[in-house]
């Protein structure tokens, strides 16, 4: 199940996000890392040091692209220049799949640079799925769509978030990047059981899993990616891989970034759950 058509039949293990503070460490020490996830937009440029670093990384490591501004859920059509640059990067990296978020963030060509929550309506599901299909056909690579953390819900919603996710991926016939931290954050902000969400996701569409840390405030939780993964998130991860199998897993750590070793060690904590899963499968 972990290798499926949504991750191009790959069997990737545990990866970490490629971040600038770690460039020197990675290029000089050459640590053993199964794969790196890059933020596509950071490398959709004409030239210079970022692309040079990326080429050096590609000489030694497997890279998967993750985007933050395709905005599959925005009502407007995809930006052709964005797509052209993204496709050029896909050719450069050889990424087996591309992921971005199930959200919106632009209106008529104006960008908020945020991952704004979708209204869970059938109209939105239809528009989002059409855009997903269009982007996949343009890029000629499988697409996985990631559930986001959210802090607001709309009156117009006609279904739950997980029902909306299922509606979109079935219509688009695309994969899921299941972010278990985002599920936890949203469950606390919107008062639902996160296990209900995990158990409702079509496991055979899960191409990749994200884990991350978050920050708790008095009245809500923010998805800050600046902490180690917390226990409730590990529990959800455990359940997710019980259902989806030994799936490519990535730790996100984007703010107050500690040493490479600390980030990598935190990511490798996922191994204990993966080993448990393999044992259960063997039994």
């Amino acid at each position, binding site marked *: 199940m972990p290798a499926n058509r949504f991750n191009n039949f790959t069997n990737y293990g545990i990866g970490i996000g490629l971040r600038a503070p770690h460039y020197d460490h990675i290029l000089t020490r050459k640590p053993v890392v199964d794969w790196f996830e890059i933020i596509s*937009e950071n490398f959709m440029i004409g030239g*210079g040091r970022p692309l040079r670093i990326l080429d050096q990384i590609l000489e030694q490591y497997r890279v998967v692209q993750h985007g933050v501004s395709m905005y599959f859920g925005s009502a407007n059509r995809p930006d052709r220049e964005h797509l052209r640059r993204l496709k050029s990067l896909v050719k450069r990296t050889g990424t087996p799949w591309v992921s971005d978020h199930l959200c919106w963030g632009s209106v008529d060509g*104006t960008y*908020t640079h945020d991952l704004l929550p979708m209204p869970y309506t059938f109209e939105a599901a239809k528009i989002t799925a059409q855009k997903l299909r269009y982007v996949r056909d343009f890029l000629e690579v499988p697409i996985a769509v990631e559930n986001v953390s959210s*802090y607001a819900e*709309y009156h117009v919603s006609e279904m739950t978030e997980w029902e909306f996710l299922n509606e979109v991926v079935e219509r688009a016939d695309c994969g899921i990047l299941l972010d278990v931290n985002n599920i936890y954050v949203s469950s606390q902000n919107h008062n639902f059981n996160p296990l209900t969400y995990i158990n409702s996701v079509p496991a055979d569409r899960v191409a990749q899993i994200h884990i991350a840390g978050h920050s708790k405030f008095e009245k809500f939780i923010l998805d800050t990616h600046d902490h180690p993964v917390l226990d409730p998130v590990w529990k959800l991860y455990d359940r997710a891989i019980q259902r989806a199998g030994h799936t490519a897993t990535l730790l996100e750590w984007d703010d107050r970034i500690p040493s490479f070793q600390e980030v990598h060690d935190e990511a490798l904590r996922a191994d204990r759950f993966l080993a448990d899963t393999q044992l259960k499968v063997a039994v």
Partner: protein
Amino acid sequence: MSLANLQKAVARAVMQPLTRNEHMRVVGPGGERMRRYAARYIKPNDRLTSFERLEIYNRQYWFRVLGSMAEDFPGLRKILGERRFDDMCRAYLTECPSRSFTLRNLGSRLEAWLRHNPQWVRGKEVLALDMVRLEWADIEAFDGEAEPVLRPEELDADSVSKLRLRVQPYVQLLELHYPVDDLVLQAKDDEGTNFASNAVGELRRRMKVRAVVALKPQKIFLVVHRLDFSVYFRRIEREEYSMLKALHGGDRSLAP
């Protein structure tokens, strides 16, 4: 309500400037009370009102774009001071919100906007515009497109006669009225320094203010380029500048 209309309404609220205390304004788009505006679209929960939930996104938006501007224009921030710089950015981003998928381009229209809105740099117009041009040139030179470099072994007698020289597209040529290259290097150095002592930090801040005040006008010609993937500011002579400028513009009179 259609998806497009909902997104337009929410985006208007999210991108509306914050109050001085960095909270969502009580008056929303179109002059409507923001509590009523938010309640029309956003559900409250047992801990947060519709207003408070929308405010999280309103604040996230402004913290992100203002942070990006401060990162991209440390020199201008030093010239204007933090408060004035933030106010100027709010006004700029309200009139010129991002039209690009990447935050890298957020400041691309700042020079043109400041020329139409000189009140934000009053008393320091020339210095501030010089700095904006230099800091934008720095961004362009850092990751701009590069053409393959011509190698000597590719030249022969026949090809030399057909040679058309061009400047790399990422190279930026600037004619400036102040030596702002010194100032921006100092500003960048300061941004990247972590002071262990607040007293030392305060002393350095006062010195920076003096450096801005003491900066005397001086015509300089600058090429902002990159070598081994690092950006360099190199002062050049007027004649060098004129020649490079002509090459940049594709002046055929310079052909051999």
